[in-house]
């Protein structure tokens, strides 16, 4: 049984690594309740719920949250359509330029965000496009496609093509086959891809700084607080809320892909 027991040193190193990954995030929760306003003093001199009320009454936080949710929702919708189409085409047949298509989908996430950002920014200025919600969406949808694509492609690969042929043989047309055979098969993969795309867009800041102009998404609001801190307690509360909001889609994605060999979110 010797080989089934991990050596103590490995256990300690793995545990220490996991702690290193989690303790900083947990600290955020403690700071949201601190009574200290001006500094990051630890330990917190006292605990209070006051800052939740203050944050709740801040119109700028609500406006930023609203814009973030709107952008994430539209970008996810677009990414779902583009990613699913692309995955369906790539997995259904081998055609010329198939590798190029895969590369093109992955490129926006493989290249540093600052490159994508400045490329879009300079393209907007060349084409004289004014900044709007849509310029942000344009950037977000571009790099969200890959998450949907990865999840959908993995599912299509495991879905047997003979199911589609059987459906057609039994007299269903393409639309009926799509609705009754293909969609039920790939629905959870699309749901997972969509949730991850939503989380990715909701949190994105690097590309957004280039495509937002004067608009504030929640990450941009936070970035400004980080660069020029004005109200630390409000930032603490917003940070905690953001952690909780992004956690939900991840737990949902985990729940839906449990027990399959595909690892959701691996292709961030």
């Amino acid at each position, binding site marked *: 049984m010797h080989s089934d027991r991990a050596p103590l040193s490995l256990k300690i190193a793995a545990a220490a690594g996991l702690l290193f990954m989690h303790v900083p995030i947990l*600290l955020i929760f403690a700071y949201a309740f601190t009574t200290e306003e001006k500094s990051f003093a630890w330990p917190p001199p006292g605990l209070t719920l006051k800052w939740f009320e203050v944050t709740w009454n801040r119109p700028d936080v609500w406006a930023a949250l609203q814009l973030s949710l709107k952008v994430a929702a539209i970008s996810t919708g677009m990414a779902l359509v583009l990613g699913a189409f692309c995955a369906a085409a790539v997995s259904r047949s081998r055609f010329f330029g198939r590798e190029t298509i895969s590369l093109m989908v992955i490129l926006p996430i493989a290249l540093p965000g600052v490159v994508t950002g400045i490329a879009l920014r300079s393209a907007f200025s060349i084409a004289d496009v004014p900044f709007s919600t849509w310029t942000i969406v344009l950037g977000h949808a571009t790099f969200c496609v890959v998450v949907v694509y990865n999840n959908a492609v993995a599912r299509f690969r495991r879905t047997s093509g003979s199911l589609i042929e059987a459906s057609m043989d039994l007299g269903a047309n393409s639309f009926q086959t799509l609705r009754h055979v293909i969609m039920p098969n790939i629905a959870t993969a699309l749901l997972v891809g969509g949730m991850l795309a939503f989380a990715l867009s909701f949190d994105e800041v690097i590309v957004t700084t280039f495509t937002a102009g004067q608009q504030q998404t929640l990450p941009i609001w936070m970035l400004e607080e980080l660069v020029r801190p004005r109200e630390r307690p409000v930032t603490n509360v917003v940070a905690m809320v953001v952690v909780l909001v992004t956690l939900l889609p991840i737990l949902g994605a985990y729940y839906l892909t449990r027990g399959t060999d595909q690892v959701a979110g691996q292709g961030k």
Partner: protein
Amino acid sequence: MSMARTGSLPPREHGAGIGTWISDVLWRHPAVLIVLLLLPPALWLGIIYLGSLFALLVQSFFSIDHFTGLIRYEFTLDTYAQLFRPSNFDIILRTVTMAICVSLASAAISFPIAYFAARYARGAWRAVFYLGIMMPLWSSYLVKIYAWKLILAKEGILTWALQGLHLEWLLDAFLALPVIGGNSLSVSTTGTFIVFVYVWLPFMVLPIQAALERVPTSMLEASGDLGARPGQTFRHVLLPLALPGVIAGSIFTFSLTLGDYIIPQIIGTSRLFIGQAVYQHQGIAGNIPLAAAFAVVPILIMGVYLWIAKRMGAFDAL
């Protein structure tokens, strides 16, 4: 092929409707379906994304008139030559050095986590490790940076912990060091390094874990049976087999470090990294050509890196 397909179609009644007609056309001509499916994503990515990238590349061959501040639309390599001025070349060297250090440190920290998760974690522990790696990966990037600002601040938790252990002198001695030291950890290069490692760590754990899961346990047992000490097994058996995973992970850590401009801006010194240079040249300075040339640097470095990685089989571990 098409004969067989046509033959397999069930007989249709007359007036079966437009849906059936479309279905028949798509079934007889699968290429039409592929084209229809591919057209939206190809147009989107081809025009919006590749088009923008191409426009950026073109601009890097223009230059800026230093008297008027306007862009001169003539082909020139001057802007690229500016990259080799000491002040600019330092930025590139600093960023690449940081990317190398961050990748090595992430690999060292990730390996035990990935190895334990791949080989020993069973049942409930498997879920713990899976979520334990996924949650930091998907937690908000800015919140993670913010958390470290709280930790590294002079009055923050790290100083408090070291005071409790009576080790402040150690921190002070470390901060007195040139280059990596500074006034406090949150305004030092070490701080930048720690945050980079922290933020990109999950990107390294996942590919290493994927590579390690494919290593058969029997191979490690055979190595032990043949008399290798654990250290020797690690060096001669485990590490070579895990190397594609490490390289795949380093693609992420390397690329993300090269392009980041927010972490060094919030936690670190005033010395610039490539991402910050791009941001400043396009923003305040309005020097789009130089910003574009700076943006081409990480693309080129990543191109070379990916080529080497592909030769070492790293893509199988992705």
